[in-house]
Protein backbone atom coordinates (compact mmCIF):
# COMPACT_ATOMS: atom_id res chain seq x y z
CA UNK A 1 0.00 0.00 0.00
CA UNK A 2 1.12 3.53 -0.70
CA UNK A 3 2.54 5.51 2.17
CA UNK A 4 3.03 9.16 2.97
CA UNK A 5 5.84 10.80 4.88
CA UNK A 6 4.82 12.50 8.11
CA UNK A 7 6.81 14.81 10.30
CA UNK A 8 5.71 16.54 13.47
CA UNK A 9 7.80 19.58 14.33
CA UNK A 10 7.68 21.77 17.42
CA UNK A 11 9.77 24.79 18.46
CA UNK A 12 11.77 22.43 20.68
CA UNK A 13 12.71 20.19 17.75
CA UNK A 14 11.24 17.44 15.59
CA UNK A 15 9.07 14.98 17.51
CA UNK A 16 8.09 12.33 14.99
CA UNK A 17 9.15 11.26 11.55
CA UNK A 18 7.92 8.23 9.70
CA UNK A 19 6.11 6.85 6.67
CA UNK A 20 2.48 6.02 7.29
CA UNK A 21 -0.60 4.87 5.43
CA UNK A 22 -2.99 7.35 6.88
CA UNK A 23 -3.02 10.40 9.12
CA UNK A 24 -6.17 11.26 10.97
CA UNK A 25 -6.52 14.27 13.17
CA UNK A 26 -8.87 16.89 14.43
CA UNK A 27 -8.77 20.22 12.63
CA UNK A 28 -10.63 23.25 13.88
CA UNK A 29 -13.27 22.60 11.28
CA UNK A 30 -13.66 18.91 12.13
CA UNK A 31 -12.03 15.51 11.80
CA UNK A 32 -9.63 15.09 8.90
CA UNK A 33 -8.20 11.97 7.38
CA UNK A 34 -5.26 12.27 4.99
CA UNK A 35 -4.22 9.54 2.59
CA UNK A 36 -1.25 9.55 0.21
CA UNK A 37 -1.81 11.77 -2.84
CA UNK A 38 -3.96 14.31 -1.06
CA UNK A 39 -4.05 17.75 -2.71
CA UNK A 40 -1.95 20.46 -1.02
CA UNK A 41 -3.83 21.85 1.93
CA UNK A 42 -3.33 23.91 5.06
CA UNK A 43 -5.58 23.69 8.10
CA UNK A 44 -5.32 24.85 11.70
CA UNK A 45 -5.54 22.06 14.24
CA UNK A 46 -7.56 21.83 17.41
CA UNK A 47 -6.16 20.42 20.63
CA UNK A 48 -6.41 16.74 19.95
CA UNK A 49 -4.86 13.45 19.03
CA UNK A 50 -3.06 12.71 15.79
CA UNK A 51 -3.41 9.06 14.80
CA UNK A 52 -0.86 7.64 12.43
CA UNK A 53 -1.57 4.30 10.84
CA UNK A 54 1.64 2.44 10.14
CA UNK A 55 1.87 0.39 6.99
CA UNK A 56 1.55 -3.36 7.34
CA UNK A 57 0.39 -3.34 10.92
CA UNK A 58 -2.81 -2.76 12.79
CA UNK A 59 -1.12 -0.53 15.29
CA UNK A 60 -1.42 3.21 15.39
CA UNK A 61 1.00 5.77 16.70
CA UNK A 62 -0.67 8.40 18.80
CA UNK A 63 0.59 11.93 19.28
CA UNK A 64 -0.98 14.59 21.47
CA UNK A 65 -0.82 18.02 19.84
CA UNK A 66 -1.78 21.32 21.39
CA UNK A 67 -2.98 23.39 18.48
CA UNK A 68 -0.88 24.33 15.48
CA UNK A 69 -1.07 23.57 11.79
CA UNK A 70 -1.34 20.79 9.34
CA UNK A 71 0.35 21.22 6.00
CA UNK A 72 -0.38 18.61 3.39
CA UNK A 73 1.48 17.97 0.15
CA UNK A 74 0.95 15.02 -2.14
CA UNK A 75 4.00 13.22 -0.75
CA UNK A 76 4.39 14.76 2.67
CA UNK A 77 2.41 15.85 5.70
CA UNK A 78 3.91 18.29 8.15
CA UNK A 79 2.35 19.11 11.47
CA UNK A 80 3.57 22.32 13.07
CA UNK A 81 2.54 22.38 16.68
CA UNK A 82 3.53 24.52 19.62
CA UNK A 83 3.68 21.37 21.68
CA UNK A 84 3.43 17.73 20.67
CA UNK A 85 4.23 14.53 22.53
CA UNK A 86 4.29 10.90 21.65
CA UNK A 87 2.31 8.65 23.99
CA UNK A 88 5.44 7.25 25.60
CA UNK A 89 6.90 10.71 26.24
CA UNK A 90 3.95 12.03 28.19
CA UNK A 91 4.40 12.69 31.87
CA UNK A 92 1.15 11.26 33.24
CA UNK A 93 1.69 12.66 36.74
CA UNK A 94 2.16 16.12 35.37
CA UNK A 95 -0.88 15.89 33.13
CA UNK A 96 -2.99 14.73 36.07
CA UNK A 97 -1.78 17.63 38.18
CA UNK A 98 -2.46 20.06 35.34
CA UNK A 99 -5.96 18.64 35.00
CA UNK A 100 -6.72 19.12 38.69
CA UNK A 101 -5.28 22.61 38.68
CA UNK A 102 -7.35 23.59 35.67
CA UNK A 103 -10.52 22.16 37.18
CA UNK A 104 -9.86 24.02 40.40
CA UNK A 105 -9.38 27.28 38.51
CA UNK A 106 -12.55 26.79 36.54
CA UNK A 107 -14.47 26.39 39.77
CA UNK A 108 -12.96 29.60 41.17
CA UNK A 109 -13.40 31.81 38.15
CA UNK A 110 -16.43 33.27 36.54
CA UNK A 111 -17.19 32.10 33.03
CA UNK A 112 -16.61 35.47 31.39
CA UNK A 113 -13.04 35.84 32.71
CA UNK A 114 -10.08 35.36 30.38
CA UNK A 115 -8.57 33.09 33.00
CA UNK A 116 -11.56 30.82 32.69
CA UNK A 117 -10.88 30.38 29.01
CA UNK A 118 -7.23 29.73 29.77
CA UNK A 119 -8.06 27.13 32.36
CA UNK A 120 -10.45 25.53 29.92
CA UNK A 121 -7.70 25.23 27.32
CA UNK A 122 -5.28 23.87 29.91
CA UNK A 123 -7.88 21.30 30.90
CA UNK A 124 -8.35 20.29 27.28
CA UNK A 125 -4.61 19.85 26.83
CA UNK A 126 -4.32 17.77 30.00
CA UNK A 127 -7.26 15.55 29.05
CA UNK A 128 -5.84 15.19 25.55
CA UNK A 129 -2.50 14.01 26.94
CA UNK A 130 -4.19 11.55 29.24
CA UNK A 131 -6.32 10.22 26.41
CA UNK A 132 -3.22 9.51 24.36
CA UNK A 133 -1.58 7.56 27.15
CA UNK A 134 -4.78 5.60 27.64
CA UNK A 135 -5.01 6.58 31.29
CA UNK A 136 -8.39 8.16 30.92
Amino acid at each position, binding site marked *: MKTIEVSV*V*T*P*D*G*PVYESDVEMVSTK*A*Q*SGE*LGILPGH*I*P*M*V*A*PLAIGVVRLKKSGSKEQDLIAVSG*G*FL*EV*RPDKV*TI*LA*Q*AAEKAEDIDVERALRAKERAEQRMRDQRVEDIDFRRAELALQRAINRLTVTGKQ
Partner: protein
Amino acid sequence: MASLRDIKNSINSTKKMSQITKAMEMTSAAKWNRGVMNAKAFVPYMEKIQEVTVAVAMGSNGINHPMLQSRPIKKTGYIVMTSDRGLAGAFNSNVIRRVFQTIQSRHKSKDEYSIIAIGRVARDFFVKRGMNVDLEIIGVSDQPSFESIKDITSSTVGMFSDGTFDELYLYYTHYKSAITQEVTEKKLLPLTDLSTFAKLTSYEFEPSAEEILDVLLPQYAESLIYGALLDSKASEHAARMTAMRNATDNAKEMIKNYSLIYNRARQAAITQEIAEIVGGAAALE
Protein backbone atom coordinates in the same frame (compact mmCIF):
# COMPACT_ATOMS: atom_id res chain seq x y z
CA MET B 1 57.56 49.11 47.76
CA ALA B 2 54.77 46.92 49.09
CA SER B 3 55.65 44.60 51.92
CA LEU B 4 56.16 40.90 51.37
CA ARG B 5 52.89 40.08 53.03
CA ASP B 6 50.93 42.53 50.87
CA ILE B 7 52.29 40.94 47.76
CA LYS B 8 51.53 37.47 49.07
CA ASN B 9 47.94 38.57 49.73
CA SER B 10 47.54 39.93 46.21
CA ILE B 11 48.81 36.68 44.78
CA ASN B 12 46.38 34.68 46.87
CA SER B 13 43.36 36.79 46.06
CA THR B 14 44.18 36.81 42.36
CA LYS B 15 44.47 33.03 42.46
CA LYS B 16 41.05 32.73 44.10
CA MET B 17 39.60 35.06 41.51
CA SER B 18 41.05 33.05 38.66
CA GLN B 19 39.51 29.91 40.13
CA ILE B 20 36.11 31.60 40.09
CA THR B 21 36.46 32.88 36.54
CA LYS B 22 37.66 29.47 35.44
CA ALA B 23 34.58 27.85 36.99
CA MET B 24 32.33 30.43 35.36
CA GLU B 25 33.98 29.77 32.04
CA MET B 26 33.22 26.09 32.36
CA THR B 27 29.57 26.55 33.34
CA SER B 28 29.14 28.95 30.45
CA ALA B 29 30.71 26.45 28.12
CA ALA B 30 28.13 23.86 29.14
CA LYS B 31 25.25 26.31 28.79
CA TRP B 32 26.62 27.51 25.49
CA ASN B 33 26.59 23.97 24.18
CA ARG B 34 22.98 23.51 25.19
CA GLY B 35 22.07 26.92 23.82
CA VAL B 36 23.50 26.14 20.42
CA MET B 37 21.70 22.80 20.39
CA ASN B 38 18.39 24.46 21.25
CA ALA B 39 18.87 27.02 18.52
CA LYS B 40 19.56 24.21 16.05
CA ALA B 41 16.54 22.18 17.14
CA PHE B 42 14.35 25.17 16.42
CA VAL B 43 15.52 25.60 12.84
CA PRO B 44 13.25 22.95 11.20
CA TYR B 45 10.15 24.44 12.82
CA MET B 46 11.14 27.94 11.78
CA GLU B 47 11.85 26.96 8.20
CA LYS B 48 8.60 25.11 7.88
CA ILE B 49 6.43 27.79 9.41
CA GLN B 50 8.11 30.36 7.21
CA GLU B 51 7.48 28.29 4.14
CA VAL B 52 3.82 27.80 4.99
CA THR B 53 3.31 31.43 5.94
CA VAL B 54 4.83 32.66 2.70
CA ALA B 55 2.82 30.18 0.69
CA VAL B 56 -0.42 31.15 2.35
CA ALA B 57 0.21 34.89 2.33
CA MET B 58 1.46 35.04 -1.24
CA GLY B 59 -0.59 32.24 -2.72
CA SER B 60 -3.91 33.79 -1.94
CA ASN B 61 -4.35 37.07 -3.72
CA GLY B 62 -6.36 39.95 -2.45
CA ILE B 63 -5.85 39.22 1.19
CA ASN B 64 -5.38 42.23 3.38
CA HIS B 65 -4.44 41.02 6.76
CA PRO B 66 -3.45 43.88 9.12
CA MET B 67 -0.19 42.18 10.01
CA LEU B 68 0.90 42.23 6.39
CA GLN B 69 0.23 45.88 5.76
CA SER B 70 2.33 48.93 6.41
CA ARG B 71 0.39 51.72 8.02
CA PRO B 72 1.38 55.30 8.86
CA ILE B 73 3.87 55.17 11.68
CA LYS B 74 2.92 56.98 14.82
CA LYS B 75 4.73 54.81 17.28
CA THR B 76 7.51 52.26 16.95
CA GLY B 77 8.09 49.27 19.18
CA TYR B 78 11.56 47.98 20.01
CA ILE B 79 12.24 44.59 21.48
CA VAL B 80 15.64 44.51 23.15
CA MET B 81 17.20 41.24 24.19
CA THR B 82 19.95 41.21 26.77
CA SER B 83 20.95 38.91 29.59
CA ASP B 84 19.92 39.15 33.22
CA ARG B 85 23.44 39.25 34.51
CA GLY B 86 26.61 40.99 33.51
CA LEU B 87 30.14 39.61 33.22
CA ALA B 88 29.59 38.74 29.60
CA GLY B 89 32.05 41.14 28.07
CA ALA B 90 30.52 43.63 25.66
CA PHE B 91 27.47 41.44 25.00
CA ASN B 92 24.89 43.64 26.70
CA SER B 93 26.43 47.02 26.05
CA ASN B 94 26.65 46.36 22.31
CA VAL B 95 22.93 45.71 21.99
CA ILE B 96 21.93 48.53 24.29
CA ARG B 97 24.20 51.05 22.61
CA ARG B 98 22.78 50.16 19.22
CA VAL B 99 19.18 50.57 20.37
CA PHE B 100 19.92 53.72 22.31
CA GLN B 101 21.57 55.39 19.35
CA THR B 102 18.82 54.29 16.98
CA ILE B 103 16.13 55.68 19.22
CA GLN B 104 18.01 58.93 19.71
CA SER B 105 18.43 59.44 16.01
CA ARG B 106 14.92 58.38 14.95
CA HIS B 107 12.69 59.86 17.59
CA LYS B 108 12.28 63.27 19.07
CA SER B 109 9.76 62.62 21.78
CA LYS B 110 8.99 59.79 24.16
CA ASP B 111 5.56 59.23 22.63
CA GLU B 112 7.04 57.94 19.42
CA TYR B 113 8.46 54.72 20.72
CA SER B 114 8.00 52.04 23.29
CA ILE B 115 10.50 49.48 24.50
CA ILE B 116 9.97 45.85 25.31
CA ALA B 117 12.88 44.79 27.46
CA ILE B 118 13.90 41.17 27.75
CA GLY B 119 16.59 40.73 30.37
CA ARG B 120 17.39 42.71 33.50
CA VAL B 121 20.27 44.67 32.01
CA ALA B 122 18.13 46.25 29.28
CA ARG B 123 15.27 46.88 31.70
CA ASP B 124 17.51 48.67 34.20
CA PHE B 125 19.23 50.73 31.55
CA PHE B 126 16.08 52.07 29.93
CA VAL B 127 14.08 52.52 33.12
CA LYS B 128 16.93 54.49 34.65
CA ARG B 129 16.91 56.86 31.71
CA GLY B 130 13.17 57.29 31.94
CA MET B 131 12.53 55.80 28.52
CA ASN B 132 9.22 54.14 27.75
CA VAL B 133 9.50 50.54 28.83
CA ASP B 134 6.06 49.08 28.20
CA LEU B 135 6.75 45.44 28.82
CA GLU B 136 9.58 43.70 30.53
CA ILE B 137 10.52 40.16 31.21
CA ILE B 138 13.35 39.12 33.46
CA GLY B 139 14.52 35.77 34.68
CA VAL B 140 14.22 33.95 31.36
CA SER B 141 15.80 30.58 31.88
CA ASP B 142 18.95 29.59 30.04
CA GLN B 143 17.00 27.06 28.03
CA PRO B 144 13.72 28.87 27.53
CA SER B 145 10.83 26.74 26.35
CA PHE B 146 8.38 28.11 23.84
CA GLU B 147 5.68 27.92 26.47
CA SER B 148 7.60 30.00 29.00
CA ILE B 149 7.87 33.07 26.79
CA LYS B 150 4.44 32.72 25.24
CA ASP B 151 3.12 35.52 27.44
CA ILE B 152 5.54 38.12 26.17
CA THR B 153 5.41 37.06 22.55
CA SER B 154 1.64 37.03 22.39
CA SER B 155 1.23 40.31 24.23
CA THR B 156 3.81 41.95 21.97
CA VAL B 157 2.11 40.73 18.84
CA GLY B 158 -1.18 41.77 20.44
CA MET B 159 0.12 45.30 20.96
CA PHE B 160 0.81 45.55 17.27
CA SER B 161 -2.63 44.25 16.37
CA ASP B 162 -4.45 46.64 18.68
CA GLY B 163 -2.46 49.59 17.34
CA THR B 164 -0.27 50.39 20.37
CA PHE B 165 2.56 50.64 17.88
CA ASP B 166 2.64 50.54 14.09
CA GLU B 167 5.91 48.80 13.49
CA LEU B 168 8.07 46.52 15.56
CA TYR B 169 11.83 46.08 15.52
CA LEU B 170 13.79 43.35 17.16
CA TYR B 171 17.32 43.85 18.47
CA TYR B 172 19.32 40.85 19.53
CA THR B 173 22.76 39.34 19.27
CA HIS B 174 23.06 36.90 16.43
CA TYR B 175 25.28 33.95 17.11
CA LYS B 176 27.83 33.40 14.36
CA SER B 177 30.48 31.38 16.14
CA ALA B 178 31.95 30.99 19.61
CA ILE B 179 34.05 34.10 19.07
CA THR B 180 31.87 36.26 16.84
CA GLN B 181 28.45 37.49 17.71
CA GLU B 182 26.74 40.29 15.95
CA VAL B 183 24.08 42.76 17.01
CA THR B 184 21.22 42.37 14.59
CA GLU B 185 18.27 44.55 13.79
CA LYS B 186 15.24 42.86 12.38
CA LYS B 187 11.98 44.38 11.32
CA LEU B 188 9.40 42.03 12.72
CA LEU B 189 6.08 43.66 11.99
CA PRO B 190 4.41 44.37 9.66
CA LEU B 191 5.55 41.34 7.72
CA THR B 192 6.33 43.09 4.47
CA ASP B 193 9.42 41.25 3.28
CA LEU B 194 7.78 37.86 2.92
CA SER B 195 7.95 37.80 -0.85
CA THR B 196 11.73 37.42 -0.79
CA PHE B 197 11.53 33.69 -0.33
CA ALA B 198 9.58 32.51 -3.31
CA LYS B 199 8.88 28.80 -3.23
CA LEU B 200 5.22 28.59 -3.85
CA THR B 201 2.80 25.75 -3.62
CA SER B 202 -0.84 26.57 -4.05
CA TYR B 203 -2.88 25.20 -1.20
CA GLU B 204 -6.45 24.42 -0.41
CA PHE B 205 -7.50 26.17 2.75
CA GLU B 206 -9.62 24.64 5.40
CA PRO B 207 -11.75 26.59 6.35
CA SER B 208 -10.43 29.72 4.54
CA ALA B 209 -7.19 31.59 3.89
CA GLU B 210 -8.26 34.54 6.04
CA GLU B 211 -8.98 32.39 9.04
CA ILE B 212 -5.73 30.54 8.63
CA LEU B 213 -3.78 33.78 8.44
CA ASP B 214 -5.47 34.95 11.61
CA VAL B 215 -3.90 32.04 13.46
CA LEU B 216 -0.77 31.58 11.42
CA LEU B 217 0.62 35.12 11.32
CA PRO B 218 0.69 35.72 15.07
CA GLN B 219 2.24 32.30 15.50
CA TYR B 220 4.84 33.12 12.88
CA ALA B 221 5.74 36.42 14.52
CA GLU B 222 5.95 34.70 17.89
CA SER B 223 8.25 32.08 16.43
CA LEU B 224 10.52 34.81 15.10
CA ILE B 225 10.80 36.30 18.57
CA TYR B 226 11.43 32.92 20.13
CA GLY B 227 14.08 32.10 17.52
CA ALA B 228 15.84 35.39 18.21
CA LEU B 229 15.75 34.64 21.92
CA LEU B 230 17.42 31.27 21.42
CA ASP B 231 19.99 32.92 19.20
CA SER B 232 20.61 35.58 21.80
CA LYS B 233 20.99 32.99 24.57
CA ALA B 234 23.60 31.08 22.58
CA SER B 235 25.46 34.34 21.98
CA GLU B 236 25.24 35.33 25.62
CA HIS B 237 26.90 32.18 26.82
CA ALA B 238 29.53 32.29 24.10
CA ALA B 239 30.30 35.90 25.04
CA ARG B 240 30.45 35.06 28.72
CA MET B 241 32.69 32.11 28.03
CA THR B 242 35.14 34.27 26.08
CA ALA B 243 35.03 37.03 28.68
CA MET B 244 35.75 34.58 31.47
CA ARG B 245 38.56 32.94 29.55
CA ASN B 246 40.17 36.33 29.07
CA ALA B 247 39.73 37.08 32.75
CA THR B 248 41.40 33.81 33.71
CA ASP B 249 44.29 34.51 31.34
CA ASN B 250 44.71 37.99 32.74
CA ALA B 251 44.71 36.65 36.27
CA LYS B 252 47.45 34.18 35.37
CA GLU B 253 49.48 37.00 33.89
CA MET B 254 49.03 39.04 37.06
CA ILE B 255 50.02 36.13 39.27
CA LYS B 256 53.18 35.74 37.21
CA ASN B 257 54.07 39.40 37.66
CA TYR B 258 53.28 39.38 41.35
CA SER B 259 55.37 36.25 41.88
CA LEU B 260 58.29 37.94 40.22
CA ILE B 261 57.96 40.97 42.44
CA TYR B 262 57.51 38.76 45.47
CA ASN B 263 60.63 36.73 44.78
CA ARG B 264 62.63 39.83 44.13
CA ALA B 265 61.46 41.39 47.38
CA ARG B 266 62.18 38.20 49.29
CA GLN B 267 65.68 38.04 47.82
CA ALA B 268 66.25 41.66 48.72
CA ALA B 269 65.16 40.99 52.30
CA ILE B 270 67.54 38.02 52.61
CA THR B 271 70.42 39.98 51.12
CA GLN B 272 69.77 42.78 53.50
CA GLU B 273 69.69 40.42 56.46
CA ILE B 274 73.00 38.85 55.48
CA ALA B 275 74.52 42.27 55.01
CA GLU B 276 73.34 43.20 58.49
CA ILE B 277 74.80 40.05 60.06
CA VAL B 278 78.08 40.51 58.24
CA GLY B 279 78.08 44.16 59.24
CA GLY B 280 77.36 43.21 62.88
CA ALA B 281 80.13 40.57 62.92
CA ALA B 282 82.59 43.02 61.41
CA ALA B 283 81.74 45.57 64.07
CA LEU B 284 82.59 43.05 66.84
CA GLU B 285 86.06 42.34 65.54
